[in-house]
């Protein structure tokens, strides 16, 4: 496939009947599929074949979906461009020569190219919404706890959710209904009906925003490129012409959201990725290092040097640093304070509005290779998406139009916890 959307193309047939019986679904390669290799975009797991299905994969199969394969991604979900994959970058079918976004870039690309009807991604700090925005498709990051993470190879457990990617809001909502709901194998899942919601999300895709109050966080709008703001402004006018009311809201805490997100995500990653030592799975210590002159730690270190790419090493090292003696209070504790502050800010803003709207990404898709050498520039591109993960809230990215250069721009709606219906309704007014 010329745009490199899949790491592994292999069909997995689902049940004969079900709501997805005539649908093909691509699955991000960090979601476990029994007997089909699951690489996480890493050389470390090049040959890893899970012995079990993730809960979401069980639910896809039970719903009748045909899985088309495992999609390319930034290594272990760590990236905003799908360029950190050990299996090469993915091109953007909606803007060739540009990145598809990340980390679920392969999932958004195969949907944009029409090679799968739907796809699953995972979103730790924007990894579903960013590629949806860059590829001109729809992506939903569910409320934390709505979708089971059992079988999702962990990057940062307290932040991530599996979410749907689709050509339309209605189709994304239908896929969300299939994967949502409590799972006894993931104790962080919650039953949405106990939060006053229900699982028929597609029913909310009626495009009726008349009387809806849409809050616009000035901090998330004003940080965006002019080309992006222009498309965003036109989309907001469109919503107003359909009867929505817009109000400006303030989220002063988001100034620190990117830093807080990276401290928390890297810290969790440093712990989660400790399991890759070449003993239970992963590259073989003996093959990588031969007989090591030293102790087991040195053998593990040699496997991890060979198996991890640069971005993964950077995040594991920074996470280890942030949790190490003398720095824990300075970085990790402060990041938790910032996270609580972001949560309060969103709660307050959502008192004034039904949903919040912002550009999904502050920039249009990067050109291939543009940002790899400067990690901090890449991290700052996540400014509008990471606050939502810190706040555990649901968000949707819908296509809002294109820049004058023909590059896709996404608009993000954020809703209250378990308020998926509200963001689906708002999104369906645009796509």
């Amino acid at each position, binding site marked *: 496939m010329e745009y490199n959307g899949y790491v592994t193309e292999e069909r997995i047939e689902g049940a004969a009947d079900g709501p997805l019986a005539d649908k093909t679904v691509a699955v991000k390669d960090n979601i476990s599929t029994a007997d089909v290799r699951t690489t996480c975009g890493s050389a470390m797991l090049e040959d890893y*074949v899970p012995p079990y299905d993730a809960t979401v994969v069980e639910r896809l199969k039970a719903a009748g979906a045909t899985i088309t394969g495992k999609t390319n991604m930034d290594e272990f979900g760590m990236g905003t461009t799908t360029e950190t994959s050990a299996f090469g970058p993915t091109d953007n079918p909606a803007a060739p020569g540009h990145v598809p976004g990340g980390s679920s870039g392969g999932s958004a690309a195969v949907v944009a190219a029409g090679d799968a009807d739907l796809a699953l991604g995972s979103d730790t700090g924007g990894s579903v919404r960013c590629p949806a925005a860059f590829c001109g498709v729809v992506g939903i990051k569910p409320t934390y706890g709505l979708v089971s993470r059992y079988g999702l190879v962990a990057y940062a457990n307290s932040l991530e959710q599996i979410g749907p990617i689709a050509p339309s809001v209605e189709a994304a909502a239908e896929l969300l209904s299939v994967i949502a709901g409590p799972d006894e194998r993931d104790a962080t899942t919650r039953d949405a009906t106990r939060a006053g919601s229900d699982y028929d999300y597609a029913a909310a895709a009626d495009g009726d925003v008349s009387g809806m109050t849409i809050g616009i966080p000035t901090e998330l709008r004003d940080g965006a490129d002019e080309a992006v703001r222009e498309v965003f402004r036109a989309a907001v006018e469109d919503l107003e012409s359909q009867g929505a009311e817009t109000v400006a809201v303030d989220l002063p805490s988001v100034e620190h959201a990117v*830093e807080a997100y990276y401290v928390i995500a890297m810290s969790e990653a440093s712990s989660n990725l400790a399991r890759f030592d070449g003993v239970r799975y992963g590259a073989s210590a003996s093959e990588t290092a031969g007989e090591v002159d030293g102790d087991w730690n040195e053998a593990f270190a040699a496997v991890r040097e060979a198996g991890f790419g640069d971005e993964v090493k950077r995040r594991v090292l920074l996470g280890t640093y942030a949790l190490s003696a003398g720095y824990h209070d300075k970085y990790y504790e402060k990041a938790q*304070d910032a996270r609580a502050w972001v949560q309060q800010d969103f709660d307050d803003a959502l008192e004034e509005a039904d949903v919040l709207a912002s550009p999904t990404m502050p920039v249009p898709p990067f050109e291939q290779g543009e940002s790899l050498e400067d990690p901090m520039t890449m991290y700052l591109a996540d400014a509008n998406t990471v606050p939502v993960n810190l706040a555990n809230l649901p968000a949707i990215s819908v296509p809002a139009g294109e820049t004058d250069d023909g590059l896709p721009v996404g608009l993000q709606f954020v809703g209250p916890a378990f308020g998926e219906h509200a963001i689906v309704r708002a999104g369906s007014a645009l796509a």
Partner: protein
Amino acid sequence: MSDSAVDPEEVHHVAGLARIALDDDDAERFAHQFQDILAAFETLDEVPEVEQDADLANVMRPDEERPCLDREDALRNAPEHEDGYFTGPRVS
């Protein structure tokens, strides 16, 4: 930001804690990249103390025996195993 500056030696120390071998070029490069990133992390100092009242509840289940992964499946991805056990790397 002298406070947050890391030198290649410190990168080597952290890499040791993280069990990742690095050559000197990598340590040099990471030390340079970490300047900007740690300088950004420093700004978290401006964050006020915030009361964290997470709405959490323990999720319990009876401690009952249930089926789990069988040994053969659990060993399937191990680069080396012997007599039903994982094999650690050979070291001198």
